[in-house]
């Protein structure tokens, strides 16, 4: 029963890859499981993880969002450049940024769900717009994020680092979403929109909702990365978009929607993060990082094709 569930969830290849890269990492860096190493790793990985889970939610709905990275940049620039004397302090800056994130998600959601634009093109275009806006806010990297945010991000609560708690809370949210009516609609629409419509599911609302929920996570991601850099940079999020798609693929989530789980995206994000570690500790020049990430994504696609072949044989 447990094994059947695990196999059907599609996370097994990602899990195997995670074990492999962790083994490599431990071999190269014996203190990997030491508390300082784990804490710094989780603090570094958390923004990526959150964007990857956001992408997973959208991909499960059979859509894509290529504007997530630019969105992180824009939110980061907003946090670093909003004049606190006008919006009135650090907390209101955060609230304004949250509203901005929801608005960005809503724009993508409206374009895709209600205007019926293909998500690949529509979010590619909005991504360019977000990037342009971010550059407009901050032509040069700089600005300042309230240092209190950084202190909070680096703190321990209940003996656990805050970034880890953020990830735990988000994963708990994913579990709840999976058990909620809305979460099932979201996946059902991704699996077969026509059947979902005939079953009485509000198809457009489900897609719109997927974008809004995802952008809530993008907001958390921007908050986390800003807490680390404490400044604004319009190019900060550039690599996030493709990393999130790669993580989704490694995590066994079908790009055709419906199949997979956010846990897969978490695995994928960890695999990609640890590969960067391995490359660093192995002394390979970091310019090879993208090369190796590409190889891992190809391997994940190989697993997927293999699985499809097996299913067809059966």
């Amino acid at each position, binding site marked *: 029963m447990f094994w*059947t*569930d695990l196999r*059907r969830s599609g996370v097994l290849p990602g899990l195997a890859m995670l074990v492999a890269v962790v083994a490599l990492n431990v071999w190269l860096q014996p203190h990997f499981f030491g508390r300082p190493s784990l804490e710094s790793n989780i603090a570094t990985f958390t923004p990526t993880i959150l964007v990857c889970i956001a992408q997973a939610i959208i991909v499960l709905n059979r859509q894509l969002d290529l504007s997530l990275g630019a969105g992180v940049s824009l939110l980061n620039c907003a946090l670093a450049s909003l004049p606190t004397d006008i919006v009135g302090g650090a907390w209101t800056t955060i609230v304004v940024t949250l509203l901005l994130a929801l608005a960005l998600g809503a724009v993508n959601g409206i374009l895709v769900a209600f205007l019926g634009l293909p998500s690949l093109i529509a979010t590619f275009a909005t991504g360019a717009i977000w990037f342009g806006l971010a550059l407009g806010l901050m032509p040069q990297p700089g600005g300042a994020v309230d240092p209190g945010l950084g202190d909070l991000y680096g703190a321990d609560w209940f003996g656990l680092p805050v970034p880890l708690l953020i990830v735990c809370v988000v994963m708990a949210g994913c579990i*709840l979403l999976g*058990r*909620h*009516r*809305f979460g*099932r*609609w979201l*996946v*059902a629409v*991704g*699996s*077969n929109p*026509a*059947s*979902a*419509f*005939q*079953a*009485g*599911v*509000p198809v457009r609302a489900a897609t719109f909702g997927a974008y809004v929920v995802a952008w809530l996570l993008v907001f958390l991601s921007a908050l986390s990365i800003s807490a680390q850099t404490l400044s604004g940079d319009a190019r900060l999020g550039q690599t996030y978009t493709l990393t999130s798609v790669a993580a989704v693929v490694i995590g066994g989530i*079908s790009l055709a929607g*419906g*199949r997979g789980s956010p846990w897969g995206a978490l695995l994928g994000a960890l695999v990609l993060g640890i590969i960067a570690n391995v490359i660093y500790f192995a002394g390979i020049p970091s310019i090879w990082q993208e090369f190796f990430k590409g190889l891992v994504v190809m391997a994940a696609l190989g697993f997927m094709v293999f699985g499809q072949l097996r299913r067809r044989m059966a």
Partner: protein
Amino acid sequence: MHFLPEGVELSGDSLLTPQALPLLSARGITKRFGGVTALDGVDLQAEAGRVVGLLGANGSGKSTLSRIIAGELTPDAGTIELTGQVIAHASPHEAALRGIVIAHQHPSLAPDLPLWENMFLGTERTRFGGFIDRSRTRREAASVLGELGATLDIDAPAGTLTASGQQVAEIARALSRNPRLLILDEPTASLSPAEVARLFDVVRRLTSDGVGIIFISHRLAEVEQICDRIVVLRNGRGVGDWATSGRLDEARILELMTGDPEARLRPHIRREPGETVLAVSDLRVGTALRGVNLELRSGEIVGLSGLQGQGQEELLETIAGFRRPAAGSIVRRGVRVSARRPRDMIRHGICLVPNDRHRQGLFMDQSVGDNLTSVRVSMQHRPWQLPVAELRRFVEQTIERLQVKTEGAGQNVARLSGGNQQKIVIGKWLGVHAEILLLSDPTKGVDIHARTEIYATLDELAGSGTAILVFASDVQELLLHCDRILVMYEGRIVEALAGEAMNEQRVMAASFGRGA
């Protein structure tokens, strides 16, 4: 409609007294798709606790009518009353809220969700705040499936179920919505006899609870067994509506479905078929083809008939190499052939004109000339040499031969009429000397004039020795143009008709599994 003077008493099932309002009463339902009228003022009543059987040939409007009642389509005219109240529902969701539920002929499940979630999709059993009550949902799913006698794994993703499993799931989903009016559209097509028996037990229990049922089936034996009333549709019109008890008047039903006997006159074409060029024996593919035998001779046009979805498309696709048969043989001129892809069969001169000409038959954004030469170019031995002059000659000859109305080889194929587009789809096979031409519904969506022209083209090809097998959902057109007609029913050819025996009555009887 008749308005009876007050105090006049009528007996029989046609009486609608205020005390016994029908559960559902649809009046004057009309629906057009483009220029085609699918339904033309159809009336349908369903009483609580009764089963009404909806019968008709292909394209008679059964499915359109049931989808309108279930809220999936909106009618262009007509009213629907539920227990005397006029309703107009815009979506399946609203229809379900009123208790009208449909189980589709082709199950519409989300393939990745487990069976139990599929059954309650859109009608989730939830606790506080919309969280799904998993244990209750699973219990209810298991109990509905148990009632149908199904032993399905409720955790299995719906996409992994067999065809009959998916059909059971589709029915179970409809049952789980506690319908007042249940529409079963060809529910038994992929069920085993035991499963059908269980389904009928459930139907009987539902009717004893006062649920009204609309039952669509092509199996007259089942209709006889379960229906209290029968409504017959022909070409989008109601042509018969009567109560039955026990035995069906099959002759009357077939008569009504086929229409006026005058239409069977046909110009008698005399063709002299040559030797056998294709012999198919015991061809099997999954559950779609269950042992098909047929022979095709050069210079003849053979019609493939039967209700939709009896395996005709699968048969054509298998012969053309789109699908691989599980068993059986395809013999061309005495040599057994097998294919891994359509290209292999094209080399043997076996070509398929697919039914969706926009998506499968044509390159819609390219010119008439490019479309006509596409097969020839893709099949030529030296792909790096483009025999431009020869191709241009071929295009000119083909346009001339098939009498395609076009401004010239450079015209965009999308701007041709449907009939002329179809001629292009046929014409491109002339470039590789197709010896056996298979056509799947070639006249779909074209007007009667274009239809005549398409068959004139086929006639011309047959005259030059091509063997032609054509599947068409319209029986009349096959009767008019074919030398022989083969009727398929549930994956087999159940009737082969030629000469005097080739008439609509015989074709229709065989289509409903009642061949001589």
